[in-house]
């Protein structure tokens, strides 16, 4: 039960203010500005309680979105809603920026009226919303169209309208993963996990029923026990690379039939039209770490520091990693830096207190090295430098969790196209999340 929703710019000026419940007063807007945006100490907690009122906020570039409530709400629900709200806005007018919000404020109020009712989240599916919240002004709709909208919004399948027709039935599927790592200087993994998303874009006619299969360990094991012979199982074990992955937890888009997933662990659904996120998941076991960082830091007296960092790529030589960036933090009393690197470009960025080393492309099973000499200014502070970890960014064309799409079947009994007629595209992208190595 969200009491109100405010959007601020970076200065704390209110761009959008929508209050849903009477228990939220006008001063709540100011309370958040004073205590969070303009707080003397930077506020890190996304949830703040000010005068018995809870403020949940997310930040997109320089824009603050804050949901306010006086009740004891489910915080996860509120954040889910805020993220959804960001997605919806992005789907309507692109990047969320102060200018875009100012230009579209009528639309935003309209959206807010639609997706929250008395503080309860309603349908936030962009595809469905776009059918009746448009920027083109009121088209004279026929009675039929109106009743169609009504039946769709109030019906069982709120996320897809009837009578969609495409000449080419196409389907795009992206597996997007971000891999998080914390490694000790000796190369011991302290913590690692992959959080992934299966994002789809579907252009299918009619009301198709889809079935998605992947190498989930439980499904594979069940099949192995049920139908497959021992030999098959053996060959699986002997084969290079693992065949199945253990998913720790997953969440689905509302279109997925959860009862079927619970009983048979099969993912079947009637897809929304256009972009949507089919599922989210997390794995922690048997993660393929695409890069290994080997740091070497040597303090030479009080005024000099020598840093050497080696990165090794750890995947098939045929694959190419992109957008590689290594960030080596420097002490706060750095007065000068000399860098030598074999590949890519490296630069000392004083404003970020770090050496940033960028490599455009790097194939698998290679290694590269950077060495830097850092000059220090003697200070009267006896505090030792805390040595923050070296962090890394990259993009690789495979799923570090090992997830594989086994099949994606489409059935549309009413229309005359079959699974074979649908053109399907599958893509794997692995990105770095927080990928850090201590030095």
């Amino acid at each position, binding site marked *: 039960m969200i009491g109100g929703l405010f959007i601020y710019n970076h200065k704390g000026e209110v761009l959008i203010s929508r209050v849903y419940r009477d228990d939220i007063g006008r001063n709540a807007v100011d309370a958040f500005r004073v205590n969070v945006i303009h707080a003397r100490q930077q506020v890190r907690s996304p949830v703040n309680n000010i005068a018995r009122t809870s403020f949940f906020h997310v930040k997109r570039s320089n824009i603050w979105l804050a949901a306010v409530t006086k009740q004891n709400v489910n915080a996860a629900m509120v954040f889910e809603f805020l993220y959804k709200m960001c997605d919806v806005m992005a789907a309507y007018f692109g990047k969320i920026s102060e200018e875009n919000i100012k230009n579209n404020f009528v639309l935003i109020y309209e959206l807010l009226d639609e997706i929250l009712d008395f503080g309860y989240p309603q349908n936030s599916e962009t595809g469905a919303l776009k059918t009746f919240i448009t920027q083109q002004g009121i088209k004279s709709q026929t009675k039929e169209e109106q009743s169609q909208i009504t039946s769709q919004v109030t019906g069982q399948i709120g996320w897809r309208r009837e009578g969609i027709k495409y000449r080419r039935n196409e389907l795009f599927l992206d597996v997007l993963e971000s891999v998080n790592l914390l490694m000790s200087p000796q190369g011991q993994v302290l913590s690692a996990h992959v959080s992934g998303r299966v994002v789809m874009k579907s252009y299918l006619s009619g009301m198709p029923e889809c079935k998605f299969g992947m190498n989930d360990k439980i499904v594979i094991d069940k099949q192995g026990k049920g139908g497959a012979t021992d030999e098959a199982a053996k060959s699986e074990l002997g084969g290079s690379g693992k065949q199945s992955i253990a998913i720790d937890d997953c969440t689905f888009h509302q279109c997925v039939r959860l009862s079927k997933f619970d009983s048979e662990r099969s993912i079947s659904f009637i897809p929304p039209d256009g972009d949507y996120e089919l599922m989210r998941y997390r794995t922690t076991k048997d993660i393929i770490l695409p890069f290994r960082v080997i740091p070497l830091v040597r303090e030479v007296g009080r005024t000099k520091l020598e840093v050497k960092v080696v990165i090794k790529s750890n995947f098939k030589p045929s694959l190419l990693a992109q957008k590689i960036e290594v960030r080596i933090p420097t002490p706060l009393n750095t007065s000068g830096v000399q860098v030598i690197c074999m590949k890519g470009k490296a630069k000392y960025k004083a*404003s970020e207190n770090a050496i940033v080393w960028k490599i455009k492309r790097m194939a698998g099973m290679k290694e590269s090295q950077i060495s830097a000499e850092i000059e220090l200014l003697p200070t009267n502070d006896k505090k030792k430098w805390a040595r923050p970890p070296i962090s890394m960014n990259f993009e690789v064309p495979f799923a570090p969790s090992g997830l594989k799409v086994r099949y994606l079947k489409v059935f549309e009994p009413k229309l005359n196209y079959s699974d074979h007629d649908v053109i399907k595209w599958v893509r794997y992208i692995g990105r770095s999340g927080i990928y850090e190595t201590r030095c």
Partner: protein
Amino acid sequence: MPAVSKGDGMRGLAVFISDIRNCKSKEAEIKRINKELANIRSKFKGDKALDGYSKKKYVCKLLFIFLLGHDIDFGHMEAVNLLSSNKYTEKQIGYLFISVLVNSNSDLISLINNGIKNDLASRNPTFINLALHCIANVGSREMAEAFAADIPRILVAGDSMDSVKQSAALCLLRLNRTSPDLVPMGEWTARVVHLLNDQHLGVVTAATSLITTLAQKSPDDFKTSVSLAVARLSRIVTSASTDLQDYTYYFVAAPWLSVKLLRLLQCYPPPEDGAIRARLVECLESILNKAQEPPKSKKVQHSNAKNAVLFEAISLIIHHDSEPTLLVRACNQLGQFLQHRETNLRYLALESMCTLASSEFSHEAVKTHIETVISALKTERDVSVRQRAVDLLYAMCDRSNSKQIVAEMLSYLETADYSIREEIVLKVAILAEKYAVDYTWYVDTILSLIRMAGDYVSEEVWYRVIQIVINRDDVQGYAAKTVFEALQAPACHENLVKVGGYILGEFGNLIAGDARSSPLVQFNLLHSKFHLCSVPTRALLLSAYIKFINLFPEVKGTIQEVLKSDSQLRNADVELQQRAVEYLRLSCIASTDILATVLEEMPPFPERESSILAKLKRKKGPGVTLPDLEDQRKERGANVNGGSEHGASNSAATPSPPESAADLLTAAPTPTNRPRPVSSSSLLQPMLSPLSCLSSLSPLSSFAHQGTAATMSATAAGPLFQVSPSTSTDLLGLASPAPSTGGSLLVDVFSELHAPEQASAEAPAPPVADDNFSRFVCKNNGVLYENQLLQIGLKSEYRQNLGRMYVFFGNKTSTQFLNFSASVLCQEPLHSQLNIHAKPADPTVEGGAQLQQTLNIECVSDFVDAPVLNIQFRYGGTLQKMAVKLPITLNKFLQPTEMVSQDFFQRWKQLGAPQQEVQKIFKSKHSMDTEVTKAKIIGFGAALLDGVDPNPSNFVGAGVIHTKTTQVGCLLRLEPNTQAQMYRLTLRTSRDTVSQRLCDLLSDQF
């Protein structure tokens, strides 16, 4: 100050600042700052030397970044280098950075001090000024240590420029405030005074501030300043406003200087020299005259400056309190301000008038403004002004106008702001009591007070009503009637129920004749409130019911029914249940005679200071002015009497629960000096009858014994006390369930009584620690006191009437104690009984070290109290004070005497007079080990005589107490009863006080 030329504008700094102002977000700002810091670091690191300009620029940037809230940990060296520059702007930035950023423990401090020293010695006045400003801004102890000696020299040097003198005076003032002990007083002080005659008014202003502060510290050194100040003041006051050029502020001549001079004069009594005095009076008069003149400007600054001088002059007049005409004129002037439309002026006028009211000369003059003040109370919009009006009304109240003022305050109370209600209630209560000619008026006032603002009426107020009603026969009937009527209101405040319950319980019979307030009606009225009240009030009401049974036998049945009901007899609250059970049994079993005795009317309370006054004082702190000085004095006298009586009653030990009625009889006479108006012979009379029946009341008495004896409150000096030493007694002790509340009221009063007499004590004296005191009665060495900082150990030896005690002070911390001092304080009677000579101790105690102090003791005559050791020292900047009772007790001068059985009994018989013997029966606190007991008796100082007593388990001892004047023989006998875990201790000495004291000391040990 040389003007900053345009070329010095530091473009880089301006660009940096504007960059930061233009940052869109916090992150961007931090990035910009990081970039700048890296840049500055690379610049400072650079091998080539920076020129002064860029050094200044970068130090400025660092300063700006620091002021934005970021840590700066470099650049100090560069800043120190700037100090040695010859350019004003560079030096200035260097000093600025140092005063803002350098902390005292830095290794650069010696470099900085060197720089400052050079500047102080330079011939350039602006450099000297910069250095002085830096010292004053930092103002740390280290700075004071380094420069405190130099600055006075600059201040009084003949060739110093005016601006330098000005800065030096203010700098010295600042150092004097931060570390007064480091500023040396010397021959310069005399010359500082002459700065008051300086040509330059700025110097005079600065010097006056300094002299005022110094004069507060050591008034005698600056006595000569009075005449100079008066001369200077008269020159300012009489000058035409154009004379003083720069120092004329909106047509007022040097207002700041005038105010400061007037304040300086307030450090001293009125000047004795007639000429000076006449001149001062003339000045004050002309200031008062100027207030009457039409304003020369309509600007608010003009009137503010003029009034500032005026108010300071008035406070000087009040301070002197010697010129009746001036006082009256001041009062009239303030009276005009009372109606001024400026709120601040009204506030100040009320505040000053409050002090004026306490002066005997102007009290009458203040009283003429009563109407204005009352209207201020009612119409003022600002609550703080109303508060002042209340204070003033309180201060101007006396016998002639008390009725009016109390009535006004009462009527105002209904609409008063919540924040000041409690205070008004207290003040009304005090005034009503103080000026009550007619006690019916008093009762009316207080009852309406409770009715109107019950929540704000503190316990003390209603305690006091009851005390007064009980002590005044003439008002009792009226009080009962009024209370009865007040209780008939459908909703009463709980405090009213308390007063009602108490008064009807005591004096309900006085109005019972009227059919409208027959006993049953009274009871029903009280009982109708019963269920709405809290537990303490219910307990009080139960006591009132039992008193009703005595007063009106006809309602006995009804009340017994109430007591029998489950809600009483099985109440979850132990106190209520016990009362119900005991009262029910008492009413069933006891005959009317017994009831009449047990539930007799309360005896009058001893006269003592109103506890409300004590509370008000506590609330307001020192400085509460009392309206009538003579009254105040009288009150104090009365207090002391009341208080000392009380002390005695408090010291009368609570008797242990008696085992049988017979024991009770022997034990009871001990606390004879309880403050009772009944003589001791008649005391026994009413006691006997309940006691004889007590044995027949076995269920009750046994039950009563389970009740703890400790609940006996010292106040409970009533007949009921002897029946059962359980909680039922406190009906008379103002009905408090635990004695602590009843007791605390008394203790409060007691403690407050002496406070005004030691009025000058700025800080409250620390509580005297005596935890370990009793452990030292039977031994001479050990640890007396210990806290986180300090441990005090003792070693002592005694021979005849002389003793020597070594006190060891151990510093438990790692830092040293400064200004350490320990002194022994003997309170009045003890002072002449005991001579203690303490050798002075070293003023510093190093961390972890021990300090020894030797005390030589001589016992002149027998004594009771113990001397107190006052310790104070400075630890980490804070002053620590503590007081410990020194275990020098009478028995330390007891020397053992061996004697045979025959001698012993002969002497025992010789000391047979009743006052020479003291006997005490008490419960054992420790296990009853024979050997331990023997050791204790020997440690006590007596010789243990074997084979004297026919019963071998008894202990017999003998000894002589040596004092300078006499020797007192002591015989003691201790009879343990292992079965009952009791002891009986008998002491016979030739002096009754000695017997009593020794008995108290020794009985504590077992």
